[in-house]
């Protein structure tokens, strides 16, 4: 028995070399890589296609005017290229949307993950997610034909038919399911042991939810809010339909406003000849929207890394 295993005796010592080829593994690896590359390539493609017309735009229009003038009307005569009205409209509608969606979405998430009985959750969550599947154009007409008249009936001040307030509110409703559903996932993933630890110290359900579960799920919740805000900032149809098409530089929520995305939709659906300044304007605004959303994502990712509570 002391003789070492010999390679010349295959019957007693089978080789450790691969016995049969595994081509499938290689093929799957390549297919999966391609799948990952498609989204990367798309992103790069978008950046490149935005960049070229944008550069040409700034060859003809001064960046100072673009970023400081408050008069927007590239299709008018004489044209105005000050993007601030679009930026302020975008920030205002997104801001209203966040004010609506974050408390309601988080409230729904806390209810579903901490309070609801399993049966209620099983029914409520899919229903909530249906809301996310409604086409935004439907939301847009819902805003214009239902919410605006309702607001005009109950608000003590005058609002126009097309107004930023209604547009922002309905964008908020649209992104509630994103906040709620993703936050609920993050909260449900918090180990039960942490909740028990809190309850065992005499904490109530609310205290446990707010002071233990929410902080532990913080990174997931912030990710949910970022995604929702990005969707809201880039939201087009609702603000196009309900917000009106006038690029007013105003902070009066009852006035019509045009967001960046709404301008792109409006100009893009018109007959703007390729290669003209008007055409390049669309891409300049698109680039700016892209940069703003990207910057927000980046900053929040940094914040999350700093404040999150890792529970494993």
């Amino acid at each position, binding site marked *: 028995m002391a003789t070492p295993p010999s390679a010349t005796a295959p019957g007693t010592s089978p080789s450790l070399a691969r016995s049969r080829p595994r081509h499938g593994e290689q093929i799957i690896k390549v297919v999966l890589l391609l799948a990952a590359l498609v989204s990367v390539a798309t992103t790069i493609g978008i950046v490149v296609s935005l960049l070229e017309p944008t550069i040409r735009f700034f060859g003809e229009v001064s960046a100072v005017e673009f970023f400081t003038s408050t008069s927007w009307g590239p299709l008018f005569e004489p044209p105005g290229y000050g993007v601030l009205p679009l930026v302020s409209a975008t920030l205002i509608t997104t801001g209203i949307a966040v004010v609506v969606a974050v408390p309601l979405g988080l409230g729904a998430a806390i209810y579903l993950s901490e309070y609801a009985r399993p049966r209620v959750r099983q029914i409520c969550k899919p229903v909530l997610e249906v809301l996310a599947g409604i086409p935004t154009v439907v939301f847009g007409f819902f805003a214009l034909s239902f919410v605006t008249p309702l607001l005009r009936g109950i608000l003590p001040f005058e609002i126009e038919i097309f107004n930023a307030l209604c547009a922002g509110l309905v964008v908020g409703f649209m992104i509630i399911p994103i906040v709620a559903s993703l936050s609920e996932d993050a909260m449900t993933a918090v180990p039960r042991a942490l909740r*028990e630890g809190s309850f*065992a*110290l005499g904490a109530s359900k609310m205290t446990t939810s707010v002071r233990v579960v929410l902080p*532990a799920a913080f990174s997931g919740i912030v990710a949910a809010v970022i995604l929702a805000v990005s969707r809201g900032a880039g939201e087009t149809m609702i603000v196009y339909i309900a917000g009106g098409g006038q690029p007013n530089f105003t902070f009066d929520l009852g006035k019509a406003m045009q967001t960046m995305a709404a301008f792109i939709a409006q100009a893009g659906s018109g007959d703007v000849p390729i290669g003209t300044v008007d055409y390049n304007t669309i891409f300049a605004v698109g680039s700016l929207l892209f940069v703003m959303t990207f910057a927000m994502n980046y900053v929040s990712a940094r914040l999350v890394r700093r404040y999150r*509570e890792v529970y494993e």
Partner: protein
Amino acid sequence: MTDIGTSIPSVTVRGPQAPGNTAALDPVFTVSDLSVFYGEYEAVRQVDLSIGNREITAMIGPSGCGKSTVLRCFNRMNDLIPGARAAGKILYHGEDLYGDHVDPIEVRRRIGMVFQKPNPFPKSIYDNIAYGPRVNGTKGKMDEVVEEALTQAALWDEVKDKLKQNALSLSGGQQQRLCIARAIAVKPEVILMDEPCSALDPIATTKIEDLMQQLARDYTIVIVTHNMQQAARVSNRTAFFTADVDDKGERHGRLVEFDETSRIFTNPTDQRTEDYITGRFG
């Protein structure tokens, strides 16, 4: 080893206060005819038991015998499980723990709990200890509360220079002592421990056991353990549970024997207890 009745090996018994000679029981909890249900399923059947003031009571028995379930009745932790229900009576200083007027949150403030796996909050060491007092509206010098709790849990010297560090940076044994400190910080009367050492190495286990002995001077402790030697080492009284299997194949936990630890480990009255502690099953 033929005559197990007279020779029970390798178990040293020492109660924390008066080894082998526990004083008369001064009950904190009096359990009578307790059955616990999860939905239709009766997990534990007809338990009668008393927990003595400032004693360590161990609950031992094989897996699935309902000892943790009973433990979790003492602070109404089972309330949090949908469908869980307790029948029978648990008196806490003569007051019905499941009475209509009883607030489970108040119960849990007076009766702390330490869990099987250390479960510190993903916060700083300081905030972990301060959480309970803050939640319960304690005013005053939080720094002192934190220091006192950590000192009582024999952890202060190890962590005093890193109170702002995340609690999860501690070792498993330190985390468990932190959880004990966290429980102490709200000044409970009773500490329930659900297999507190099962996730720890022997050295950390020894530290926790020493700590329990010290805490028993001020607190009533109930510990569930799989480790019989641990029960023998630390407890004054031991309750031995087992599970009966009914004709439907369902297991129902049942208390077999409850007595002074020295008696349980040297001269048990029930054959099943003897079989278990001598390693014949379980």
